[in-house]
């Protein structure tokens, strides 16, 4: 399974990448959401984990782009410290599959990814 993780802070991405790779996932990380769009085309991820507050292109704009322009249905999990109810509901409106609020443990992220996999295999 291929996971694309986008966050403007590399210190967030590195342990996530390490953990997911240990679990057998193929992981690609980037600190630039615009580059993330390119990686979506080239890396062809099965799951995207994306932050919200990022310079250049925000997570919401990234999601909007993927869902409306690319017509992508790839599962998207948001991973953000932004707890604004408006942002969270907007994310779900654009079809994200989960919104994880930082701080949270790598174990919880993994449990949520596993749950999402089961969901997609079942439905």
């Amino acid at each position, binding site marked *: 399974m291929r996971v694309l993780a986008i966050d403007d802070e590399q210190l967030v991405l590195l342990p996530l990448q390490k953990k997911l790779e240990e679990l057998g996932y193929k992981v690609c990380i980037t600190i630039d959401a615009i580059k993330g769009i390119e990686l979506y085309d080239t890396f062809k991820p099965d799951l995207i984990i994306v932050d919200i507050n990022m310079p250049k292109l925000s997570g919401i704009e990234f999601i909007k782009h993927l869902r409306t322009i690319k017509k992508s249905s790839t599962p998207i999990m948001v991973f953000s410290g932004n707890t604004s*109810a*408006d942002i*969270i*509901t907007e*994310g*779900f*409106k654009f079809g994200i*599959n*989960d*919104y994880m*609020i930082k701080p949270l*443990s790598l*174990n*919880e992220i*993994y*449990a*949520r990814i*596993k*749950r999402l996999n089961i*969901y997609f295999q079942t439905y």
Partner: protein
Amino acid sequence: MKILAIDDQQLVLLPLQKRLAQLGYEVKIETNSLKGIELFNSFDPDLVIVDVNMPIVSGLEIVKYIREIKKNQTPIMVLSGNTNDNTITEGFELGIDDYMKKPLSLNEICARVKRLIGAPELEDATENSDVMIQERCVGVVIPCYNEEERLLSKEFTAYIDKNSGYHLCFVNDGSKDETLKVLFALQKGREDFITVYDCEKNGGKAEAVRLGMLHMAKKEDLDYIGFLDADLSTDLADFDDLVKTIENSDFKIVSGSRIARMGANITKESARKIISLTINFIIRKILSMDFKDTQCGAKIFHKDVIEIAFNKTFVTQWIFDVEIFKRMTHHFGLKSAKAMLCEQPLKRWIHADGSKLSMKDSIKIIGQLGQIAWVYRSKKSKNKAAAATELNLA
């Protein structure tokens, strides 16, 4: 679409039920987890929302029952303040579909529900709600004496409409005006969130607070109970800061403190300032505690200590706060009591016009302090005498 929500705190369930029903879901709520299981079987919901930490049967045991015994795949969302990593991962391993951590907004819950089971088609979709579902439930006692003219009803109702997890208890302290009528008008339509406790005779603020606190302690879903002045010298938003402190610490009492400083709006009359300093000096000596301000009318208590602090009538009327701290010391010992008390500076305290405590009254307080010192000292020596008698008998 049918939703079953199980949580031992009704103050959490009511706004959730209201909001989901507005969106067109058929919602049943239950505070008893065993009855929740019965309802799951009879109601046959399309979604179960369940809390984790509940007495008798925990939320995860309900999940286990649904997934392992009933072999049922109905979507389950956990709604809990428990952020323990093991609990969350155990939940997902048992097959929950989402784990929502309190506090979170009703909007977010609804967005997650919609993602999981879709939404009923409604012709007139209602507006968004900015209500937050809190982790804790708090009771607030507000003593009222002749407040007909100045009670800030709108401030109170606006706050509880927006902030879930609060239950206000207005104690009418034998008012001579129409306060009781105003309070019932305030309560109308919000009976689940507002209680009016009527004392026919005026027994003073101390007794009104005491009766209100004991009355609220009977409500099982409250985690913390506090009291607040009716004039909102400290408003409910500031009171919420005290709540945040007590819920994130091991303190049993968090007491607001009116310490004037940069960045805070604390206004007191200058005459009060001088008297306050004198009174405070005596209080410190009596309590053997380095309190800056014992008399602020905003305090929050863990439910465990309500009985200790309020079970007996107070000796004094205006400085019952000092008696509360004395009772804590008597019960737990000075060292333990000190570790349980937290004095938290308030961001705002406005001395409202028409407050009943005059400068002359303040001087009387000094006499009452002497009374406390005497009564509680004699209690201590009485206890010592009783203990000595017991030892002699043994």
